[in-house]
């Protein structure tokens, strides 16, 4: 008997129990907890009305489509996950639902800005148009301040090189229609088409300016017809029922593992708790907005984590049946199972990464939670599951293999 191992195991159990107890409140907190999406909690519901053109030309469906594309892009650039953007062609309106927006007024301002981007010299002459700008990104400059990085098209690069050479030491105005957005001083001629506007106080401010600069201008001007807070789109009662059902499902998985795998089943259940904690805290840390698709990704990764445990214990059984001792069986079983699982996990992770990179909206949400789940599953298995298994089989060399569900007589 190794009393040390028993002591360590008891300490681990207590530690995990304490972490679980301390985690519940911050994770489900309605303000600071894991943010929930439109379907689960609701958000801001906006209706933007397209204003009739001043010159009297009618607003076409094509204009509405263009406006929708630009607004969708702006919404995505704002970092709002899985927004809903719908057009009402008959009434020339745009319906926008946003989840987890901290400052709805600011979001609205950015969404409905229709203005055209121009660069002007101090005399007010337009020297460069928004079309010449290829990209604008908010970020951090070399001195640590917040900046907007501009990238010009090849044509824009030549024009920008010319004008920065001419305007050195003077101010270059960046205008949205006739509104001055910012007017940085030209310090050096910029010949490579990569410029940096410095002097932003926060990253948010820089990022918001970048959104406005890069997303192009709306073909029609928009006004807010409506703005209000709305509840979850999935029925709240029905959702609560589903959450309860999901918990029953999890309890069943726990019982199944206990009955089928006995001692390792305990280890598996314990590992799954640790795994879920890791995943949920990562969601919390990265402010992953949970929606139904996100939960689907999480469910799949739970399935994969359970599978990982099953693969380990089945392999351990095989190793013991092949004549290895319990300890050797656990060691080789674990490493062989790991080889098996790594290929499956990597393949699925590749799929998740691809969906995250190329997908939009709900597809991104799904890929994100799946990706996090896969990494967490591997991490938990290598660190926690293996440690606990080793400690457990290390308790006594004479441990009965039936505790591992192995019948020696086979």
């Amino acid at each position: 008997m190794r009393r040390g191992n028993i002591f360590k195991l008891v300490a681990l159990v207590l530690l995990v129990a304490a972490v679980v107890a301390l985690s519940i409140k911050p994770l489900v907190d309605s303000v600071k907890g894991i943010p929930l999406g439109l379907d689960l909690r609701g958000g801001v519901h906006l209706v933007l009305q397209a204003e009739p053109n001043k010159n009297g030309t009618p607003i076409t469906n094509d204009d509405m489509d263009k406006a929708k594309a630009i607004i969708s892009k702006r919404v995505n650039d704002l970092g709002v996950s899985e927004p809903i953007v719908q057009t009402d062609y008959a009434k020339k309106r745009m319906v926008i639902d946003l989840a987890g927006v901290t400052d709805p007024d600011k979001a609205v301002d950015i969404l409905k800005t229709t203005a055209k981007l121009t660069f002007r010299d101090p005399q007010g002459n337009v020297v460069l148009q928004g079309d010449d700008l290829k990209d604008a990104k908010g970020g951090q400059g070399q001195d640590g301040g917040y900046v907007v990085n501009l990238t010009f098209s090849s044509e824009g690069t030549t024009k920008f090189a010319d004008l920065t050479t001419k305007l050195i030491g003077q101010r270059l105005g960046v205008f949205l229609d006739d509104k001055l957005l910012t007017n940085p001083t030209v310090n050096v001629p910029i010949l490579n088409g990569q410029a940096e506007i410095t002097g932003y106080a926060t990253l948010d401010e820089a990022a918001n300016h970048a959104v406005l600069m890069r997303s192009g201008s709306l073909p029609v001007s928009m006004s807010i017809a409506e703005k209000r807070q709305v509840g979850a789109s999935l029925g709240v009662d029905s959702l609560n029922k589903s959450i309860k059902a999901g918990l029953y499902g999890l309890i069943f998985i726990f019982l199944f593992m206990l009955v089928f795998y006995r001692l390792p089943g305990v280890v598996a259940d314990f590992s799954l708790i640790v795994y879920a904690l890791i995943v949920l805290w990562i969601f919390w840390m990265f402010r992953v907005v949970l929606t139904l698709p996100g939960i689907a990704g999480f469910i799949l990764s739970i399935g994969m984590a359970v599978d990982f445990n099953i693969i380990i214990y089945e392999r351990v059984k095989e190793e013991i049946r092949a004549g290895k001792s319990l300890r050797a069986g656990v060691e080789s079983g674990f490493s062989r199972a790991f080889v098996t699982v790594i290929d499956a996990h990597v393949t699925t992770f590749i799929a998740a990464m691809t969906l995250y990179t190329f997908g939009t909206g709900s597809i991104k949400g799904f890929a994100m939670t799946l990706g996090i789940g896969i990494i967490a599953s591997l991490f938990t298995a290598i660190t926690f599951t293996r440690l606990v298994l080793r400690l457990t089989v290390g308790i006594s060399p004479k441990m009965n293999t039936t505790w591992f569900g192995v019948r020696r007589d086979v």
Partner: protein
Amino acid sequence: MQTGHPATYDEVKKIHPLYFNVVKKRYWWFAISLVILIPGIISLFVQGLNLGIDFKGGTMIDITFNKVVTQTAITDTMKSVGLEGPVQLSNGDTTALIRTSALEEDKRNELLTALQTKVGEYDKKLLQEGKVGPAMGQELTRNALWALFIAMGLMIGYITIRFQFVYAISGIIALFHDVILVVGIFSLFQWEIDSSFVAAVLTVFGYSINDTVIIFDRIRENEAKMKRGEAYEDMVDKSIWQTMRRSINTVVTVLIALLSIFVLGGESTKMFSLAMLIGVFSGAYSSIFIASQILVEIKARMKKKPRKGGKSVRA
């Protein structure tokens, strides 16, 4: 103490009380799958999918009641006139934002009357309605499909590097099998599809490939240890049975969790969990009965003169 050795084919057969030769019956499995897949595919071409408002757009009604209302009361009323769709409450639960399929004048009036009698009086001056376009636009769906194809390409690359090209092809065929099966069944029964269906299909996509690779790993391991004169069919059959307990246990745990959400869960997640139930079952089935069998089939045909059964060792 007995000296150990890795299990032989005969030992593997003996461990499982329900052992039968999976590989020999492979044409049966192909047939069973085709029987389910073909009606689904035909249905997809003939009647397509029953797309919900997330894909087609519909009517949006903004209605303010004279009292506090519940989401359930409204969805139940909608159901009583044969309508579905998300309902969002605001203004202290007095205003409801209802999205449902595009309504004709008659249907609209029927709904409003039903709401008035069953839920409560509403303010006619504040009633607003409009037709809205799809939330899941075509570009999003197209985007998703592209992302899936790129993902498949990359997965083929990875599996080819870690296994062999034939494994990759077999795995991808099984993947198509599972996705088409789910989509086909939804088309066949004309179950309404909303945006959560896309998530369910993605889950099936992930489960299917994960499950297949696990079994392929065992086949790869045993293939490397194959002795001269051993039949590929037997080696695959042995691999399948060595991993059978894991295959069953894993799929049972996942299916029961999903079944619990399907049976006990709320109305709004029913179709979502149903799609996953079908897909996960198919994913587990196809790893054993499709992916591995296609692998055997391709390997058998790659041999110059396949002699069927001639070489196999009798049990």
